């Protein structure tokens, strides 16, 4: 590359051309004597720097000087920085012009005896794109204004706790936190991020923006910044602190407004002052009258009585310990707007009153009575197919509808409805379930499934009718189905199907010949006897369910067809399924244990990676506690054992822990690796290769470890049995000689997990016996506030 010291200058070129042409014509073989002009050229001499501040580069050229020649500059303004550190460049730098006035400077550029040239520099006044002003604070709200320089600027604002705001280190960190929040909100609303942001953007200037719902007497920060729908921040973040006022201490009035549409009551309660704690609720006429009969026809007395009853009820059920908690839960301080689905043609009272922290009403109460509208009949044509597929405890139902109007479907033993006409059945259901309870049996649209949990040899009447707002909206359809009689439990046989065999799992379907009976099923080793199965189940009830038969039956017993995946089995090992009919309530075995054929799990696929977990020394936790009570607290009365792992082979994760010892635990033949994997993965240490464990004195324990290699295969489980005795503990000073700080401690729950070697059985799919006579349903949103 050649170097250029002069650039094109038309005037100079004309002169040179003339000289050259003349010389060529007259003295064609004489070299031209070129006279070089000595001056300083600049790329610009009038520079305007943007109001927000910037660096502007001016290129200079010193004609007639050596390469590398550098100009000198003189600057008469403090606000302007002038640099010639970079070759051929004069850099003019100014910060944001917040002086409120246009500013100018003159930069003189010189070189030796060359004629000086000047650069005039000016900078316009900076105006913030957004000006945020706090106008007023109230007890639960702040009022502020946002002025934008550009009326098209889109922006967002936030009001946050001062503590959070001060934790943020930069505008960018605040923005990233906001962006995460926007993203989460978009996810929750099921819309793209840009759509969500569009809903929160403001454009241009606003006065008297009010942010409500703040706590009285608290410190906040309001901040705003420019933002596009695409999530691009366009300005810095502008903020102002704000402290809300203390709560208003005087009397207040409350305004109650009620609207209703489509049997949805819309209630608005507006307090005369923000920040005053008040209670509001509603009650139907029937409930009101029952309280009024006892406490007098005075809304304050009625609702005070209800509050007292509610508090006591919650305390009795241990949901509540103090009245102050109730006050906190049910206090409102701002205007509230709430909707709830009301019953047709029902009278309601909406009540609101200021109250104190002991939940006693004070001052003037506000209330309003409202009678809800009637419900029109539904045109929904509901077609029900039932009775084709019935067994001892369930039958199949298919429902087709012509629109999405809600309907009730409910089945009861026919004797419950015997002799009743349609009106009487409806009254009976309302009486038994209540209008609120019936919501559990309301469906919308087409559905199909099994009605489960029925008694055998029983005639059931299933009724289906349109239902809305506590009122029947279509004619009632009735169907009767008789369940199949149950045989004796001892005659119940089982059909077992192996769906899939993995290295460590079996997927099995169990079908009883008689769907009336509840049964337990699981896999066992092929040589397990019926007595051992029963013993195992009894142990399960006692050890895992602490004798709670309800819990056991709920989670462990099946009825009808059951499919489940049994995990953590040993590979290439035979297992047989055992099933036994049991009494749901008493846990009694009602029949012999039935076994399947032997199913074999898939070929083993252990990782070749090996892992060991060892320790050199252990210490008396009491000694540690004496030296450092904080560090030693969790080891008091225990041995502190620093365990380290060593892994040979590739691995991507590892788990290790200490188990309480059980006979044979160190023997893979008695406790296959697969039985330990789950506990290790759930409870094992996975984050550090050395940790301090807590181990009991004088009790056998097993240190166990496993690794998972890069292909996801599990290693064989390392296991070593130890018993820690105090007299073998090393001197605690050795711990500190070795290292002045403790190895990372393991929290107590990880140190000695409660051990369970019961094989895991996944909860059967589609087994809905727990909810008698109930199918999967479309629940209506319960908008009722408190009742």
């Amino acid at each position, binding site marked *: *590359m*050649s*170097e*250029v*010291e*002069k*650039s*094109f200058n038309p005037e100079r*070129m004309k002169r*040179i*051309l003339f000289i*050259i*042409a003349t010389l*060529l014509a007259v003295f*064609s*073989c004489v*070299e031209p004597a*070129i006279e*070089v002009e000595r001056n300083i*050229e*600049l*790329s610009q001499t009038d520079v305007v720097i943007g109001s927000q501040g910037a660096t502007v580069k001016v*290129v*200079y*050229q010193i004609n007639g000087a*050596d*390469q*590398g020649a*550098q100009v000198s500059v003189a600057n008469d303004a403090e606000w302007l920085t002038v640099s010639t*550190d*970079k*070759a*051929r*460049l004069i850099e003019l730098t100014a910060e944001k012009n917040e002086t409120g006035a246009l500013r100018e400077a003159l930069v003189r550029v010189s070189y030796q005896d060359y004629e000086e040239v000047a650069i005039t520099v000016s900078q316009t006044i900076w105006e913030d794109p957004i000006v945020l002003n706090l106008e007023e604070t109230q007890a639960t709200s702040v009022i502020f204004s946002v002025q934008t320089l550009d009326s098209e600027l889109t922006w967002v604002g936030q009001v946050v706790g001062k503590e959070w705001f001060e934790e943020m280190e930069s505008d960018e960190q605040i923005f*990233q936190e906001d*962006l*995460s*929040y926007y*993203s*989460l909100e*978009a*996810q*929750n*609303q*099921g*819309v*793209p*991020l*840009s759509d969500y942001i569009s809903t929160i953007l403001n454009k241009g200037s606003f006065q008297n923006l009010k942010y409500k719902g703040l706590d009285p007497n608290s410190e906040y920060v309001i901040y705003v910044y420019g933002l596009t729908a695409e*999530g691009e921040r366009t300005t810095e973040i502008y903020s102002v602190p704000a402290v809300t006022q203390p709560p208003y201490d005087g009397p207040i009035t409350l305004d109650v407004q009620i609207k209703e549409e489509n049997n949805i009551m819309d209630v608005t309660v507006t307090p005369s002052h923000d920040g005053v704690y008040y209670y509001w609720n509603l009650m139907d006429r029937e409930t009101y009258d029952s309280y009024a009969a006892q406490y007098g026809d005075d809304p304050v007395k009625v609702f005070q009585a209800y509050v007292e009853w509610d508090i006591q009820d919650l305390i009795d059920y241990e949901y509540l310990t103090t009245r102050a908690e109730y006050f906190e839960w049910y206090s409102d301080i701002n205007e509230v707007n709430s909707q709830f689905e009301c019953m047709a043609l029902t009278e309601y009272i909406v009540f609101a009153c200021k109250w104190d922290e002991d939940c006693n009403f004070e001052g003037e109460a506000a209330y309003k009575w409202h009678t809800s509208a009637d419900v029109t009949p539904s045109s929904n044509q509901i077609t029900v197919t039932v009775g084709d597929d019935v067994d001892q405890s369930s039958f199949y139902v298919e429902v087709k509808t012509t629109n999405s109007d809600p309907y009730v479907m409910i089945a009861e033993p026919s004797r419950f409805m015997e002799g009743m006409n349609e009106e009487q059945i409806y009254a009976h259901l309302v009486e038994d379930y209540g209008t609120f309870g019936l919501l559990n049996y309301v469906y919308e649209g087409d559905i199909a499934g099994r009605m489960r949990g029925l008694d055998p040899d029983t005639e059931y009447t299933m009724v289906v009718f349109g239902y809305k707002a506590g009122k029947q909206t279509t004619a009632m359809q009735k169907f009767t189905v008789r369940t199949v009689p149950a045989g004796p439990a001892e005659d119940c046989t089982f059909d077992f199907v192996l769906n899939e065999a993995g290295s460590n799992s079996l997927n099995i379907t169990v079908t009883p010949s008689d769907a009336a009976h509840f049964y337990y099923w699981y896999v066992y080793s092929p040589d397990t006897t019926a007595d051992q199965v029963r013993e195992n189940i009894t142990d399960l009830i006692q050890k895992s369910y602490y004798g709670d038969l309800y819990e056991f039956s709920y989670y462990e017993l099946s009825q009808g067809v059951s499919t489940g995946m049994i*995990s*953590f089995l040993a590979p290439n090992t035979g297992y047989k399924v055992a099933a036994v009919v049991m009494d749901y309530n008493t846990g009694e075995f009602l029949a012999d244990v039935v076994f399947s054929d032997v199913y074999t799990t898939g070929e083993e696929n252990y990782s070749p990676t090996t892992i060991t977990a060892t320790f050199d020394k252990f210490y008396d936790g009491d000694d540690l506690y004496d030296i450092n009570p904080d560090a030693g607290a969790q080891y008091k009365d225990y041995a502190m054992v620093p365990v380290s792992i060593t892994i040979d082979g590739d*691995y*991507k*994760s590892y788990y290790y822990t200490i188990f309480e010892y059980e006979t044979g635990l160190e023997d893979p033949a008695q406790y296959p690796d697969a039985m330990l994997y789950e506990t290790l*993965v*759930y409870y094992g240490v996975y*984050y550090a290769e050395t940790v301090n464990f807590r181990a009991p004195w004088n009790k056998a324990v097993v240190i166990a470890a496993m690794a998972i290699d*890069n292909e*996801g295969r599990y290693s064989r489980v390392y296991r070593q049995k130890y018993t820690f005795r105090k007299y073998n503990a090393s001197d605690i000073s050795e711990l500190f000689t070795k290292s002045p700080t403790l190895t990372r401690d393991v929290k107590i729950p990880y140190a000695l997990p409660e051990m369970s070697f019961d094989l895991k059985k996944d909860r059967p799919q589609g087994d809905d016996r727990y909810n008698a006579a109930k199918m999967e349903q479309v629940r209506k949103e319960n908008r009722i506030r408190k009742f």
Partner: protein
Amino acid sequence: MKIWKFIAGTILSLAMLGSCGNEVETVVPVIDGELAFAASSDQLRSDGADAVTFAVSVIDAEGTVHDVTEHAEIYLTYEKAPLTSNVFTTDMEGEYIFYAVYGLQVSQDIVITAINDVPELPADPQEDNVSFRHRMLLVQHTGATCSNCPRMMESLRTLSQDESYNGLYHHVASHSYNGGEADAAYSEAARDLSMAYNLTGMYPMLTFNLTSTSAGTGLSEIKAQIDQLKKDKAPVGIAAAVKQSGDDILVNVEVKAADANSYRLAAWLLEDGIYSLQSGMSESWHNTHDNALRYAAGKVSQLSFVGEKLGELKAGEKAGKVFVLPVEESWVADNCEVLILVTAADANGNYDVVNSALCQVGETVVYDYK
């Protein structure tokens, strides 16, 4: 090289005709127009041999591009003298800032990163071959507190064991659900990726390349989509080398084009074996999360993952780039791997993934020829 160079076409001719036995130095007028300053790469190895070549051009009012490299001065910032040529080499790692001066115009700065310890690419075993296998990108949008997500995990695990499909894609688990709550595999890159895909909150979600969304979590649906998107040949092949260097993972990537197009390149850091209790889990392996997206290099902006420009490549032409991926303290570098994505422009100029390759730390991958 201190010379005067003036030009005047006719005068130059006259001077030559004059033929006095002395060369007359010519002068080139400065061309008016928009100054452009470009480098052959924005990075190089600091080995004293690897070089970056600069070019300076002017686009005149008619839109004609004039190469003025020979007549411009190229400066390394704070050096008083311009470069003696338009080629730059160095044996010191770091960032170097250059600018060009032409006439009385100065260019934008160009930043060149000199990197030490760049992992060596594997040799290309078939230089003339441009027939590459294709692997699409599957992104599993998931989260540890997403109770429906194990269903997708099951489907993807089964898919990964199906030999007729597991060679057709590379899988990334992007943990972005619920703002990463209680999820050790969450990352800001995953959050941004979910926003870039404009997900609508329906987790789990599977996306294919950068544009296609799965209709469901079922294996058959996933396979059907793969069947639609799979290609017999990729328009570009990928070779790479990855190594750890201090707290960073260095990725050296080279691509070879089979089809002429404009390509971009990205490198994503993935981590295996992250333990985080999985909501809805039924198997212990659900709690251990693999292929979790940790960091994405080659983002154009916070929400654009199309990769850094490689530029126009002709068939058979190669281009490369080095990425430096930071490893945060809580990540396990030994469990990390790097997914390389090449994107190409479609007819509308929109970029999507056209091939991908996975490289373990400390290893290399060669072009995957068919």
